[in-house]
């Protein structure tokens, strides 16, 4: 038989190259230089955000009102200078990164969970469940996004948990649609029929057998979703509706530099958070695109 001869090759030293599905994905991703650079940059940013409290000599809210410490341009003691109440902006920048990236991660995790559960139930059962879930999704998608955010944060107050909840609740429909669409095609596959013929329960069939097949798409969506949530959170914080000071976020750091004089003469107030937003959003987008190409090479053309 042909297969046994392939196995025999192994004994003679000709190792058969064998990769799993994910092995293939990683291999293709590694050949994508742009995506790999983005990944490295993201790892650096996230790494700095994680270690900043341990390595920074300055505390996050430690103000220093003495004149020589306020409004300082970048120097060797304050890498990115200080603000008008004497806080070290380098430390604040990466604290803000923790908040911005953390919020983005929490939102994406939450919306994916909601989206996956509702999307797979809708796709698997079809019929009335599908109709209900997808119509609710349509309703959520037709909300004017900013208005809802403004309304909710003015009613509930703008704390970080509320922000996460609002963003996740408003964005689950897109992932639910993706998952539902995939499940609709996958549930007709013969292996799902074989599963049913083995007596495996519905819940196990959905979450153990179907979901792993959808995971690739969810990962791509989640990566691209990170970028869009960072942007949304930043704009909300800039408008004073997201993360509120003194807790820093990239958005409200830029907001603090809204003054025309600051923009003109004190670039260290707003250029670093601006670049952080730009770089991290771009990296997440490139990485997401790279993952998509790696997962489904046919989609590239």
């Amino acid at each position, binding site marked *: 038989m042909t297969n*046994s001869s392939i*196995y025999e090759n192994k004994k003679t030293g000709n190792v058969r190259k064998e990769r*799993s599905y994910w092995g293939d994905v990683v291999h293709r991703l590694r050949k994508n230089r742009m995506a790999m650079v983005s990944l490295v940059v993201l790892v650096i940013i996230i790494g700095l955000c994680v270690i900043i409290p341990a390595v920074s000599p300055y505390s996050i809210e430690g103000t220093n009102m003495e004149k020589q410490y306020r409004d300082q341009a970048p120097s060797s003691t304050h890498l990115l200078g200080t603000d008008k109440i004497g806080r070290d902006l380098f430390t604040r920048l990466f604290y803000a990164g923790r908040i911005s990236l953390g919020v983005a991660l929490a939102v994406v995790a939450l919306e994916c969970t909601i989206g996956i559960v509702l999307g797979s139930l809708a796709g698997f059962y079809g019929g009335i469940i599908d109709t209900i879930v997808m119509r609710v999704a349509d309703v959520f998608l037709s909300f004017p996004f900013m208005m809802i955010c403004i309304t909710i944060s003015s009613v509930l107050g703008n704390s970080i948990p509320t922000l996460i909840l609002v963003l996740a609740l408003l964005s689950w429909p897109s992932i639910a649609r993706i998952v539902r669409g995939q499940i609709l095609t996958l549930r007709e*596959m*013969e292996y799902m029929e074989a599963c049913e*013929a*083995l*007596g*495996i329960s519905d819940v196990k069939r959905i979450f153990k057998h179907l979901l792993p*097949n959808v995971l690739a798409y969810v990962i791509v969506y989640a990566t691209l979703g990170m970028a869009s949530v960072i942007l949304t959170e930043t704009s909300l914080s800039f408008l004073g509706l997201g993360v509120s000071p003194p807790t820093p976020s990239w958005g409200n750091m830029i907001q603090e530099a809204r003054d025309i004089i600051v923009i003109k003469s004190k670039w260290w107030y707003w250029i670093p958070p601006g670049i952080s937003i730009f770089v991290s959003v771009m990296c997440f987008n490139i990485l997401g695109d790279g993952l998509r190409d790696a997962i489904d090479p046919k989609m590239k053309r």
Partner: protein
Amino acid sequence: MEKLLEVKNLKTYFYSERGVVKAADDVSFYVNKGETLGIVGESGCGKSITSMSIARLVETPPGKYVGGEILLNGEDMLKVSDERIRQIRGNDISYIFQEPMTSLNPVFKIGRQISESLMLHRGMSQKEAYKESIKMLELVKIPNPERVVDDYPFALSGGMRQRAMIAMALACEPKLLVADEPTTALDVTIQAQVLDLMNELKEKIDASIMFITHDLGVISEMCDRVMVMYAGKVVEVATTEDIFKNPRHPYTIGLIASKPDMSTKSSRLHVIPGNVPDLNNLPAGCPFSTRCSHVMDKCKTAFPEEVVLDGQHRIACYLYTEGGSKQ
């Protein structure tokens, strides 16, 4: 002989916007213990729906079990609870499907897929099930089972996958194995190997097989008895020998005549004139009446009662009822 499975007057219908499709209409048959029953018929004649109905695998809606009984060891499959039917699936009744390339979940290793039913129905731990999976792979004659158990399906060829499917289906030693065109997608040499394997394992675990195919050659090789279906109806049931030597229903006669024969030199194959009727719009009476060369007036009004000839040979055709020309 003891009957393992007895299906009485099964009616599985599909309700669509265009009307009712009677995919299995008043189907009755039985399978003895240790026996292989072949089901033949052209595409869309209801053989798959009949076999799926046995473990209640037809999707409802659009399908519906309108009537009848499916008795497996006296237990009616159409009446048991959802939980009970899940216990029966994979444990008492197992299925092998046509397409080995898509019948295995691409994201799981072979071993895990075989283990699953063992863990579910036999209550084995993951480790025990893993070891048992290797044994099963060995049983279906896969070389290097210790390696294949950790392979993903894409690493196996079609024949190997179908073997793995058989290992999965037989893992819990079911009493009834339903094979829905298991060799249609395989090439002829692999087909012969898989058929031999099925026969061998059937003896080993003392199972009965329902073998669905449209390949008469495979039927003659595998089956003890044959049931011929046409447009949702059973038209003839007989022992394999009888069917080939002495086919009686005009449809069976046409089917067997259409089989290419190496010994004759005719350059054209025999065909049954006409097409399978639209299941949405069946003719009244016998569905074969539109293509039958012996058609009589009463064929167009009502489906004939079943006639039993020579003790075992069941035919549903007016030619053999009272007043029929061959009676």
